[in-house]
């Protein structure tokens, strides 16, 4: 690999481009860093022009956000979001794992079509089914019920999950499975001892990505929930209109509500591309 020819380029150029990459990276991260810093400023320091970079730090923004300052508590919304995201992710795994296994087995050509059917449903804009779902929920008394969101988020993530998982399951080398068969292993043993260890990181990444999409969802939550089943993104929409000096509070709220997604995203970082490109890119 390291032929002399590769090194003919001047080193200085390489260092310059490395520096440029750093600058661009910092520029992209700057809004988030500024959001984090502002969340630790007092409201008065947060709303100055020019900005007060070195203002003293305080937890007031977080106190305000968590409702000790008198506003609505975000805890019900955070709990609702957790229930909706975790429960729908579990349902997705339950439905997608057998389906992905059956598809990565692929005995006939037609199965690719099934795979593409799943994908095509993902391409249909959610907004197109919104009204009938709303009318159905209204008649069935399911409005403002978190389990309706669990059902919808399961459907929303199932196609991606089936695609991702079948691409992860397909990575299990056939030779290893054959060897296990020759040794007399039965299907459950093969699944537990051979398939699972290889596919598990991929399955975990799938779960994390489904969690992210459910946690982020706004449109359905906004239309189908009210006071009881409100999720975290819906809670955030309460900050759309300005309420006097509230920047530190907005930043604290945005940061706290984004933390689970940032954590899940970085945990799945290695498999993120494969997942988001529906397994088309490895």
């Amino acid at each position, binding site marked *: 690999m390291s*032929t002399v020819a590769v090194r003919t380029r001047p080193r200085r150029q390489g260092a310059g481009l490395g520096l440029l*990459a750093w600058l661009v990276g*910092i520029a992209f991260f700057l809004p988030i860093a500024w959001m984090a810093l502002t969340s630790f400023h007092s409201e008065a320091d947060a709303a100055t022009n020019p900005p007060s970079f070195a203002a003293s730090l305080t937890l007031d923004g977080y106190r305000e956000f968590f409702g000790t300052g008198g506003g609505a508590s975000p805890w019900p919304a955070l709990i609702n979001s957790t229930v909706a995201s975790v429960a729908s992710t579990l349902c997705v795994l339950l439905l997608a794992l057998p389906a992905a296994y059956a598809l990565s*087995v692929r*005995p006939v050509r037609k199965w690719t079509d099934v795979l593409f059917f799943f994908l095509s449903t993902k391409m249909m804009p959610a*907004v197109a089914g919104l009204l009938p779902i709303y009318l159905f929920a209204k008649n069935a008394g399911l409005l403002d019920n978190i389990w309706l969101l669990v*059902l919808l988020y399961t459907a929303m993530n199932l196609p991606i999950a089936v695609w991702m998982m079948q691409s992860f399951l397909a990575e299990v080398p056939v030779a290893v499975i054959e060897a296990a068969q020759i040794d007399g292993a039965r299907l459950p043993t093969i699944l537990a001892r051979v398939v699972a260890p290889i596919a598990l990181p991929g399955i975990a990444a799938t779960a994390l990505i489904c969690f992210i999409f459910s946690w982020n969802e706004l449109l359905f939550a906004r239309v189908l929930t009210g006071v009881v089943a409100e999720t975290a993104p819906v809670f955030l929409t309460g900050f759309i209109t300005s309420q006097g000096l509230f920047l530190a509070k907005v930043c604290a709220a*945005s940061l706290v509500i984004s933390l689970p997604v940032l954590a899940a995203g970085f945990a799945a970082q290695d498999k993120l591309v494969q997942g988001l490109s529906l397994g088309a890119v*490895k």
Partner: protein
Amino acid sequence: MTATTTAPIAATPVHARSAPSTRLRAWATRAPLLPALVFMIAVTQLPFVATLVISFFDWNALYPRARHFTGLDNYRQVLTDADLRHSVWTTVLLTVTVVLVSLVLGLLLALLLDRRFKGRGVVRTLLIAPFLVVPVAAALLWKHVLYNPEYGLFNGLLHYVGGPQPDWISRTPLMAVEASLVWQWTPFMMLILLAGLQSRDHQQIEAARVDGASDWQIFRHLTLPHLRRYLELGALLGSIYIVQNFDAVFTITSGGLGTANLPYTVYQSFYQAHENGLASAAGVLVVIGSIVIATFALRVVSSLFREEVSRA
């Protein structure tokens, strides 16, 4: 057919191969697929059929008794209504701008990150972060913390250099929405293109370099053709998500100042105006637009998919 590489798993149950049990086995292998399939059809396809039916009715939820069949009237109204037509145009403009700009930026970033330098992993992490902020939170961040004309970060930084203090959102509302989306979607494009760059044939590139090809020639004649599929994939997946964007429009401008796109219009016409029929017709139009994009997307994904499978 390339899709049979892992087929030997199918031959697992080694028992008898007689005719009746073959059929039974076919169903046994098919069975795990059925719950997911039935669930998807019930939850995603049935509502759309209902939308299609409702779109042929004049139906305002506030006057349910006046509901009646109107044929294609809603579609005529959607396509002739100036506001709605404008929202079609806004959707196209928003999607194309965001996808193209984030694709170009993503390509530049991917090229920067494809080389080795100190702290590459850290820079990659910094760059991914915008994609991992909850979309509503990101929109709030841009609206209040960056764009605010009095104390936003942009005008704060402009203040240092004595620049103007524009009211970003009211002066260029659509661009304000687009910029926030570009910020979130550039990392996505970068990740896909970076994966594309790293799957290049490095021996071929070295051979070209030994033969005296310049960096630009290598990029133009080797890298870019190789990246074509990945660019297409990024553009199409990006389009699918951004055509459907609701969060940024809803949060930053609340659909005002001519930024209402189709998803927002659909939301508004049934959630606020209670026009069920019109909303459904607009929804069907969004679907038709998406099908056009999706047809291309599926083709690209399927060609990459075949390639991956045959390589495996």
